[in-house]
């Protein structure tokens, strides 16, 4: 994912991010981080839920693992925002992009669609997760977070700035957030804030390196993927960075010892069956179901759940972390509602499309 000059909320100059010099800029960047992380979820989840039960197990688990880590990143960003005295905002229609979208940063060279699990979807996923090293001349999410880190360091050194105020809303702690892509930590000072941000960079794009060599073999051992930074941070099994995880799926092969960025994966085949997938209409809209009251009702139900989830998450990040517990239940309900839609064909569809959720935020009176 790249951030370019058109990305209005962030100041850039000569295709470089401007340094963060005020608390307001920091909070603005962290809110954007939350939106960026969240924006990837509908597209990943659509692909995930179109996979028919007990098929494409490897693909299912890879996409699921990335989704969990995006949620972890979101929560880490929110904790840094809360810990520095800010207020995450999730309960508004603008929080959700309208698909197809350019993602919050309005890039022009690729579009993010909601689509079924397919080679095209994987291509998009790889665009989203492309590492800094191969993004020539473009600003990446990794650099976006690095800029936040520098901002934190700078602001922490200012004697007139109370960067980590004593009285803030409670953060999301391990007790509420576990089993989800990483181990959440409380942000109380510069070190813990940098730890949280660095965890995002490490998981998403691999550990940042200064001497990147596309022909250098990945540090793989016999059975696992590319070193992503998880290992030293969280004692989790080694996993590939997101880009390489998706590249394994699109190539249909595993990376093994000796493989490099340039070699691509040369290991055993990954069984993938693109036919064992519900043929969801790309970028479903409420209007697609105008003449089909049953589908309309199901989609409305999904959007109600989705809106309820955003309200719950907003409340959880704004003083009531215990609400994350029932929010997990809402996530499961959304999954079932989405899968129900996806199992239903859209009548009279020329391409034999099936229905899918439209991911819209409904305010209270809708």
């Amino acid at each position: 994912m790249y951030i370019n000059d058109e990305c209005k909320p962030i100041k850039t100059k000569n295709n470089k991010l401007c340094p963060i010099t005020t608390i307001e800029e920091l909070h603005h960047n962290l809110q954007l981080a939350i939106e960026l992380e969240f924006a990837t979820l509908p597209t990943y989840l659509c692909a995930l839920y179109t996979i028919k039960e007990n098929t494409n197990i490897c693909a299912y688990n890879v996409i699921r693992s990335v989704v969990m880590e995006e949620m972890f990143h979101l929560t880490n960003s929110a904790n840094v925002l809360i810990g520095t005295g800010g207020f995450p905002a999730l309960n508004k229609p603008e929080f959700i992009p309208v698909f197809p979208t350019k993602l919050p940063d309005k890039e022009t060279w690729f579009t993010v669609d909601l689509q079924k699990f397919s080679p095209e979807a994987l291509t998009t996923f790889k665009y989203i997760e492309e590492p800094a090293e191969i993004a020539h001349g473009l600003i990446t999410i990794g650099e976006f977070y690095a800029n936040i880190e520098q901002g934190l360091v700078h602001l922490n050194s200012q004697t007139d700035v109370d960067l980590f105020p004593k009285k803030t809303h409670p953060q999301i702690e391990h007790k509420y957030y576990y089993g989800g892509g990483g181990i959440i930590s409380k942000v109380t000072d510069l070190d813990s804030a940098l730890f949280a941000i660095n965890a995002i960079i490490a998981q998403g794009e691999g550990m940042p390196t200064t001497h990147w060599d596309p022909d250098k073999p990945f540090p793989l051992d016999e059975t696992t993927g590319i070193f992503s930074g998880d290992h030293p941070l969280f004692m989790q099994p080694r996993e590939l960075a997101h880009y390489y995880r998706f590249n394994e799926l699109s190539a249909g092969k595993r990376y093994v010892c000796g493989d490099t960025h340039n070699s691509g994966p040369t290991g055993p085949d990954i069984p993938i069956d693109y036919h064992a997938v519900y043929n969801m209409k790309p970028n479903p809209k409420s209007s697609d179901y105008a003449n089909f009251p049953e589908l309309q009702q199901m989609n409305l139900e999904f959007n109600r759940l989705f809106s309820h989830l955003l309200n719950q998450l907003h409340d959880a990040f704004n003083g009531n972390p215990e609400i994350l517990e029932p929010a997990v239940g809402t996530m499961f309900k959304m999954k079932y509602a989405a899968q129900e839609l996806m199992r239903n064909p859209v009548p009279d569809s020329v391409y034999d499309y099936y229905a899918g959720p439209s991911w819209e935020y409904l305010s209270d009176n809708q």
Partner: protein
Amino acid sequence: MSTCEQFDVVIVGAGISGAIMAQQLGAKGKKVLILEAGTGTEDRFWNSESEHEGEKVKHPGYESYMDTFFTALAKIPNAPFPNNPNAPQPLVTDLAPIRDNQPLTDGYFVQKGPLPFSSTYTRSEGGTTLHWLGTCLRMLPEDFDINTRFGQGLDWPIDYDELQKWYEMAEKNIGVSANADEQNYHQINNSSVHIPFENQYNYPMEKIPQSYLDHHMEEGLRGMTVSFDDQDYPVDVVSTPQARNGMPRGDYRPVGAVGNPDVGQRCAGNSNCVPICPIQAKYNALKTLEQARKTGNVEIRNQCVVYDIEVDPATNNISRLLYKQYQHSGSPDHVCKTVTGKIVVLAAHAVENAKLLLASGIANSSDQVGRNLMDHPTMLTWGLMPDKIGAFRGPGSTSGIPSLRGGAFRKNRAAFRIEIGNWGWSWPEGAPINTVPDLIDQKNMFGKQLKDTIQSIYPRMFRFGFLVEQLPDSNNRVTIDPDYRDQLGNYRPVINYNVTDYTRAGMAAAKQVSDQIFQRLGVEGYTEYHPSDPGYLTYQGKGYTYNGAGHLVGTHIMGSDSKTSVVNKEQRSWDHPNLYLVGCGNMPTISTSNPTLTMAALTYWAADNVLKALDQA
């Protein structure tokens, strides 16, 4: 010439007690071998394949159990786990009433009665924890000396205080969700059930949220008492401690599925704990086995059935174990092998430990091996609540009524714990899988009528389970008979079993409590006990039916006298200095708690004893 392999410790059985023993010893650098009779999945969650000499070899993972479960017609507790003639296992579908002293021989057990023994277990790597519910209750202090207090049963050679720190260790390592300030039962107005906990101690995870039904019961029964022998006892609903991942306390990390650790770190409400949790949010021994393997000192060999144990007559030490290793469960082809360990631990399950000791003719100077087999004869009562209580949701049970577990009435009759079932009539009637087809096929319902009927009845379904105490009885026993063998030529367990009046009186008292609760809550009773039920019995002219709880206890009890017990308080055989027995077989009484937690606590203690013995040698 000796080609016998040597280990520090050889453990027979890869269930929870074998896993705990291996993990504890492996972590201290001891070389350990586990021999498991059944097949296994090692550390795999997903099925996989490899090529061996041009042939594709399948390696089933935990997923294969789900596949088997989905296609099984009868969703019984052992439904997901392989039917393996080389390591056969008892099934609830084997059961029938025993008539005219004719033994039941169709299943794995040979049941001589007079009543059938109704509990089963699983012979696969991971053992019966693969299908347990996960209830992790501690015993009451008074449970350890019911002979002294009530003149019934046996006293243990240890007391609650000695076991307490091992309970804590078991709760931490298994991963139990509960709140100590509820589980000490100090809120209950019956001091007999109070359990002392260490100050500041708490479980590694917060209690699993109680179901809507639990709250409904709690409200409806508030202030209720029942009277036994002119003494009033409270009827209090309390959440049940469970080996099921919940919200972690402090820096505890919930353990996810083996081979797929991202899933299962929290219970996701699949409502399928028994027979199989699809995501392993519920603890099973595969988790401890994985930790054991990771020590680098533990080897687990599946498909190896130990059939004989030899003793060195000079020292009375176990000299070697003889086992049959088979390639496929479908074929009896096998090779015989031997192995030796400085210390040998039998962790094969209460029935299998007894069977193996009897087959080998060892450790039985007391003549107690195989005797004192116990279970919790479990009486169900069921009915329809006046309003919907959300049946069939959540874990199988999240609360119970423990306030009647102890008291002076134990002089006269068995105590019991009441389990509140969250899954409607699944146990008594097989609902909904067995009952919905009846609506369609027999009652000719379809469409709206069928939907309306299901929607009006099923969410109101309710059932209690009464886990009634059974005393040690030397006539309730496991024996062997050369006429009854399995495909590999190993003995099948021959079981004599009865339920005494002490326990029957407990069932009658339980039924009275149930009737009072049903009346108070307006439950429309549907409970029926039929003489055709395998567990049908009568007491004072009334009929009751018990089911198996899967709590197989006794068979090699611990005691302080070598003439009346099989192991001492260290859980070491009185007869053989290097032989330890672990598992529920060591428990001299069953009382009213599901035995796994107590057994796990005892096994952590036993592992400590084995370590000390190895280090002294």
